[in-house]
């Protein structure tokens, strides 16, 4: 209905294969970017930052990462929490070891380190398939958490066994530590998210992406037409873990500030991110955003409704949260296995065909 595609055609392959081939979509995308970068920073306050925006941005990165592994390459992982932990602790060690290096560098290196660990735990995927692998990744989850819990070198021998993010800056602006401005942390995460999304998109629409999807859809055929399974799967694990690591680092350094590994990066975290991917839509970058947004906002809304309006005790609301999330997962798998992203796609189709039904 809102679309005007007459005269909107591509005369080069570059135009045709761009992320938003339709002009209208492209403009909407620019608008959102502009809004996020130029408007939000001036409206943002601590509540919004901590309750919604930061978690959304950070989880979105994680979701993108996991989506690459599960949605694009078809390798289910329950180890996300563990990999986030790797990112967090790597970042912590770096922050404390090199105080005056920019936070950007720390986070990125943390991501790279996680990527390596990811590859390590990805190796079994060559022999193990389906949920055998899913369970195998639990090993990563539990082992890593245990590791950071028990080996005190990781938390610099602090008595509490916690890690605390000292104040670190980017271009002289504090983005971690006790006294940061909402807009600064927001921008810091936003930049990472934007870059992650763009990179993820580029990878998934290109050569690597195709090899991943080939493996996902039919691994044997893929190998026979020349996809190297080893390479495909390991790159998927690497890239995925890279993003997950980054999100872990941000989650710890920027969002929480202080972390006890068991709580922050436990198995529950793995499931949370997995759910984001399922609800959002497997194999869709947009889905990762949608899923993250949904599961971040849902509890907040429930809390407002349950606690503030109905005056229920928080634990009941928390339980409701479980019920609803669980129910939604099942519902989505039944009704729309491709998640919010697919719903969005359908809506778009309808608009483009308007006023015709098909």
């Amino acid at each position, binding site marked *: *209905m809102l679309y005007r595609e*007459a*005269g909107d055609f*591509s005369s080069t392959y570059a*135009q045709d294969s761009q992320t938003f081939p339709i002009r209208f979509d492209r403009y909407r995308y620019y608008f959102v970017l502009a809004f996020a970068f130029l408007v939000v920073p001036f409206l943002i306050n601590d509540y919004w930052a901590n309750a919604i925006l930061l978690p959304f941005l950070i989880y979105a990165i994680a979701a993108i990462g996991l989506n690459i592994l599960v949605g694009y390459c078809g390798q289910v992982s329950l180890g996300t929490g563990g990999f986030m932990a790797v990112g967090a602790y790597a970042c912590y060690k770096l922050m404390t070891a090199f105080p005056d290096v920019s936070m950007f560098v720390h986070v990125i290196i943390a991501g790279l380190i996680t990527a390596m660990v990811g590859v390590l735990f990805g190796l079994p995927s060559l022999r193990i398939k389906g949920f055998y692998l899913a369970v195998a990744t639990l090993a990563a989850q539990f082992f890593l958490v245990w590791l950071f819990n028990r080996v005190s070198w990781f938390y610099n021998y602090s008595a509490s066994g916690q890690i605390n993010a000292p104040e670190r800056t980017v271009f002289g602006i504090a983005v971690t530590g006790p006294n940061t401005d909402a807009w600064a942390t927001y921008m810091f995460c936003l930049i990472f998210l934007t870059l992650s999304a763009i990179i993820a998109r580029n990878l998934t629409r290109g050569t690597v992406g195709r090899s991943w999807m080939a493996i996902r859809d039919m691994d044997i055929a893929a190998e026979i037409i020349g996809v190297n399974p080893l390479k495909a799967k390991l790159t998927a694990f690497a890239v995925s873990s890279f993003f997950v690591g980054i999100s872990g680092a941000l989650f710890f350094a920027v969002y929480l500030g202080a972390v006890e590994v068991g709580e922050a990066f436990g198995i529950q975290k793995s499931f949370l991110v997995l759910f984001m991917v399922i609800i959002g839509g497997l194999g869709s970058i947009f889905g990762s955003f949608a899923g993250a947004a949904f599961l971040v906002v849902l509890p907040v809304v429930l809390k407002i409704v349950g606690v503030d309006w109905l005056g229920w005790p928080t634990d009941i609301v928390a339980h409701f949260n479980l019920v609803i999330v669980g129910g939604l997962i099942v519902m989505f798998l039944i009704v729309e296995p491709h998640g919010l992203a697919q719903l969005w796609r359908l809506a778009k189709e309808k608009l483009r*065909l308007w*006023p*015709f039904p098909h």
Partner: protein
Amino acid sequence: MAQTQSGVGGLVSIPALLNRNASEFAGSPAYREKEFGIWQTWTWSQTRDEIEALALGLLDMGVAEGDFVAVIGRNRPYLYWSMVAVQMVGGVPVPLYQDSVAEEMAYVMGHCGAKLAVVADQEQVDKILEVNDQLPDFQRMIYLDPRGLRKYDHEHLEQFSKVQDRGRAARDRLKAELDARIARLDYDSTCVMLYTSGTTGKPKGVVLSNRNVIETARSSSEFDHLRPDDDILAYLPMAWVGDFIFSVGQAYWTGFCVNCPESPDTMMTDLREIGPTYYFAPPRVFETQLTNVMIRMEDAGRFKQWLFHTFMKVAREVGPKLLDGKPVGFLDRVRYKLGDLAVYGPLKNTLGFSRVRVGYTAGEAIGPDIFDFYRALGINLKQLYGQTEATVFITAQPDGQVRSDTVGVPSPGVELRIAENGEVFYRSPGVFVEYYKNAESTAGTKDAEGWVATGDAGFIEPDTGHLRIIDRAKDVGQMADGSLFAPKYVENKLKFYPNILEAVVFGNNRTECTAFINIDLTAVGNWAERNNIAYSSYQELAGHPQVMDAIQRHVEEVNLSVAEDEMLSGCQVHRFVVLHKELDADDGELTRTRKVRRRIIEEKYADIIAALYDGSPRVSTVTEVTYEDGRKGAIKATLEVRDAATVAVARKMAAE
């Protein structure tokens, strides 16, 4: 006679215009073609180089001035280039209908003695090879798509790209010669030769000079304010004069871009992608498109249906007024805006008409509802009246005075004259030079002062000065009582009903008019489905009483409207039958351009016509038919003859 002796600023030939465009609009697109998934684009300067390379290649192949070169295939930039390249070397391009059978080609190419042919693909190559022995002068063929031709003997075959390579290689050697030849082209040298698919007899080769083409292109472009940034979609047969004027004449004069679809079956999607700003289509196309719209809307949800119908109502009253710049109340404007948001905009978008600035239809009369529908949407659809001999333009409708029942005022530089028998004559810079190798029919159509007979009967509305075409002159006859008999006029009114595909009206020298009706299978079939009426064959559906009733209603409505026009009130249809088979070109009942061949039909269906006049309630008949594969067969049928109510009117003698 308003004729400039030489073109503006030495622009006396298409190649000359190409040169100008290549320097003036160097960077802007001249041609686009959907191929390999994207719109391949050539700027004007690239186009110049391509064409030049080809022209040099042709020189190298020894094409002489005055040689005729056949161009056969669907609309593709390469083929348009070929025509211009041929002009460059002083030859005469002769575009042919790609779907014409080998014999037809044999005649045309033999008639003009073509030495060379530029063809699209294996299919065309085969056709020509098939009749090669009938063509003494024919020497070589240039083909575009090498597929399947690898194994062919290449002694008389050459690939398009190869020819261009030859040209590029020989540039230094032949450039001078080429320039010389281009320079020798003047305003009166032949620009193109087009064969008219005559309703009777062999096709005639209409010779058009540069003057004809360029003058017409200039005046018509100015008439519609065409711009270099305009886009058209070239999908109509290249052999048809209209396509030549739009895609070559006007394109080169104004320097706008010609877009070629990927293939006939992707035509609609390609149309949607390009979104032309200047669009031509015969009424049939608009008609089918409208039918599709309606059918698709049937499946829409209740809300959408409501939205569509309410706002279409608004559009029908407000839209045309807005287009004609008539005063419109504020409230109406608002309602129309809303409609535009909810329906018209999206609809135009899905149809690919969002950007259309000027749209034309011609060749047949178009149904008022159809015409109004598109105008209501805000598409500036207009009618023009023309023919090959006039290089298209005789009359056209200026913006702001558009009506479905006229064909507009004389185009710039055109004079009109109506003969006693009502036949329309014209004189203009666009008047063709001659029929090639056919002096007497040239004389027959064009008199000494350059007046050309259109062969159509019509009259000029005194108050508006618009021309109204009634019918083909030779079909216009007299009823027994001497009143005017114009079958086509009535037939068109009948055909405006979606249910009626074809109609043939009889009555020449008879006391009353009668008619054959062909139902439209798509429309009626669809209707039958919705009212779950079962039918096993076209014949059964055509004979179905409910269908008959519907048709009868249509006929009677037509009678009413015919009666209003006292000149033609005699032509009301008293009795009719719904034919048991579709009139078909393969059976010789229609021309390839779907014009009715009265004589043939009158002979073939004599028995039915007899029944129409002897008052019998039904008639049994046997008809010979030709099937897809060329086999012949016969179908039996018993047809019901219906009487239709007519309006009694005080008869005056017609034709003052």
